[in-house]
Every structure is written in structure tokens, then in C-alpha cells.
């Protein structure tokens, strides 16, 4: 099954339930990756996540309907962090952001942060978008609920939310 518009729309709803009900301690990037991979496994969708190692780009790939989903997820969570999430997402307009989209931070060449949007809506009184997000952390935590105006979120990468590059997963 490919990542159709229906599948991508379904991910937004799935992610919201997933992160709000996640009951274990988890790192921030792992929460986003876990949500994506578990949705793909449940819907028999492919996932391709690119990473840079030994001087070149390479891929972690899970074929559609593969029975190796658990091993793929374990490997992806172990090997990939917030900076890899940035590499596998694209910048989107603030007004098009929705549940499951991400707000990323790149603090250094080795450390970043991942926030998963739960709700986002324009607040006319504040003149800004009011965001509710969930996040893992380091040290790992049971996902934390945070709220704030978008402009008040610290060190947002590219000053915009991001969305998984769903189109690359089918290639």
C-alpha cells in the first residue's frame, strides 16, 4: 500500500492518539519515529529513512507489509536521533501545520530536539499560533505535554514546523 492522501491524513489522527497515550519513558526523536513506524506497520505502509554515515547518504528501509517491522523499528530508534528526523522531514507553512507534524531544534551538530504537534490554532488575541505539543526528552520521560505560542518556542529549526517526507517512503 502506498502513502496516499488518505494514509497521510490517517497518520495525523493516529499520531495524536499515539503520543497522548504513550505510557513509557522515551527520548524525543524516538517518540516521533515510533509513532511513524508503528503506523506504517499497522497500515502495511513502507518507510525509508535516510541517514549520513561513512561519508555518504544511505537508507533504512521497511518494505510495505514487511514482517520485519519490529526489527526495523528497534534499529531505527537505536540509530536515529533528532537531527536524523530533520533530514527526513520538510519545512511547511505554519498555517498548514496539523497533528503529527513536528517542531524541531538543532542545538549543535550532535544534539537536537523533537516536538510533536497535538493541536495548533491561530490565536487572534495573541497574533500568533497557539501550539499544544507532546515530547519525549533526554533523560527519557513519559511524554510531556507542553503549550505555548509558536514564537515563544526556543530555537525552532528553520523557524517553521516540519512534516515527514511521506513521498520518499514510497520510492
Amino acid at each position, binding site marked *: 500500500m502506498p502513502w496516499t492522501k488518505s494514509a497521510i491524513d490517517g497518520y495525523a489522527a493516529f499520531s495524536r492518539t499515539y503520543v497522548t497515550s504513550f505510557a513509557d*519513558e522515551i527520548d524525543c526523536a524516538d517518540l516521533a519515529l515510533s509513532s511513524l513506524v508503528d503506523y506504517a506497520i499497522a497500515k502495511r505502509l513502507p518507510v525509508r529513512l535516510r541517514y549520513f554515515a561513512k561519508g555518504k547518504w544511505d537508507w533504512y528501509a521497511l518494505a510495505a507489509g514487511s514482517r520485519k517491522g519490529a526489527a526495523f523499528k528497534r534499529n531505527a530508534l537505536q540509530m536515529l536521533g533528532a537531527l536524523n528526523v530533520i533530514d527526513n522531514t520538510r519545512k511547511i507553512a505554519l498555517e498548514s501545520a496539523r497533528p503529527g507534524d513536528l517542531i524541531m531544534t538543532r542545538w*549543535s551538530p550532535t544534539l537536537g530536539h523533537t516536538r510533536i504537534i497535538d493541536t495548533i490554532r491561530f490565536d487572534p488575541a495573541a497574533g500568533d499560533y497557539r501550539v499544544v505539543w507532546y515530547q519525549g*526528552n*533526554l533523560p527519557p520521560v513519559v511524554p510531556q505535554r507542553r503549550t505555548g505560542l509558536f514564537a515563544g518556542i526556543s530555537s525552532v529549526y528553520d523557524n517553521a514546523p516540519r512534516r515527514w517526507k511521506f513521498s520518499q517512503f514510497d520510492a
Partner: protein
Amino acid sequence: MRRWWHVAAAACTLVIGCVRQEAPAADEPPPPEATTQARSCLRLDLAPLAIARVDEPQRRLFVVAPDAAEGPIAARIRDLESCFGFTDWSGRWSLSVFTDAALARYKDDPQVEAAVKDGRWSKAYLAEYDAASKTLTRNPGGRR
């Protein structure tokens, strides 16, 4: 005679509890004798470790260690396992070991933002112990 019986019964309860705690399962409720408050375990002498802060909702102790030597850290983890085993934190607590109390915080805490950016926070984050999986991870603040 009656008093002896009470002492013996109390001792048996303690032993049974200790044996049970050698292999607790994270998803099991605490044993019925788990009447000790988790907070009482925070009064243990953890030297050479020192508690920097406690995140009670996440059941996490942030501690400071003088160096990365694993022996003292492992020994204090055993002490804490024994104590928390009789509380509702049993199998559900974590220990985050740092070299500097000022840096012993979550990475998104504004108070450590400068140290996160320049790498001091990652270097100071020596180890992470997860009681649910009983794993000690060295240098957990690496590439994430």
C-alpha cells in the same frame, strides 16, 4: 511468647519481600507489603553520589557523581533498588548521573540551554539507569 511470634512474622514478611524484589516486573503492581513511601528512599546515604534534584512525576533522581567510575554508581543503584522495591516506585524509577549539579536537568530546560548548545551538557551526562529494564547506559547524551 506472643511478642516473639510478631517479630518472627515481621521478619518473614521482610524476607519474602526481599526475595520477590530480586526480579520485579515493571508492569506488576508493588507487593502488598510495599508500604514505604518512595520519598524515604531519597534520604539514603548515596555517597559518593549526591542528589541534585528529583522529578517525582517521572520518578527520576538527578544525581551528581565525582567521576565516571562505574563501581560506586552500580553500588548505589543496588541500594536504591532495594529501597524502592518496597514502594510504589518499584521497577518504575530512573537515575540520571551527571558530573555537575547545575547541568543535571532535561536537555530542553532553559537553564541548561547554553550548555546544551556548546556540548557541556552532553559531556556532563555520564549515565542513565532504567529500573524497568535494569539497564545502565553510559554517555546517553551522545548523538541524539
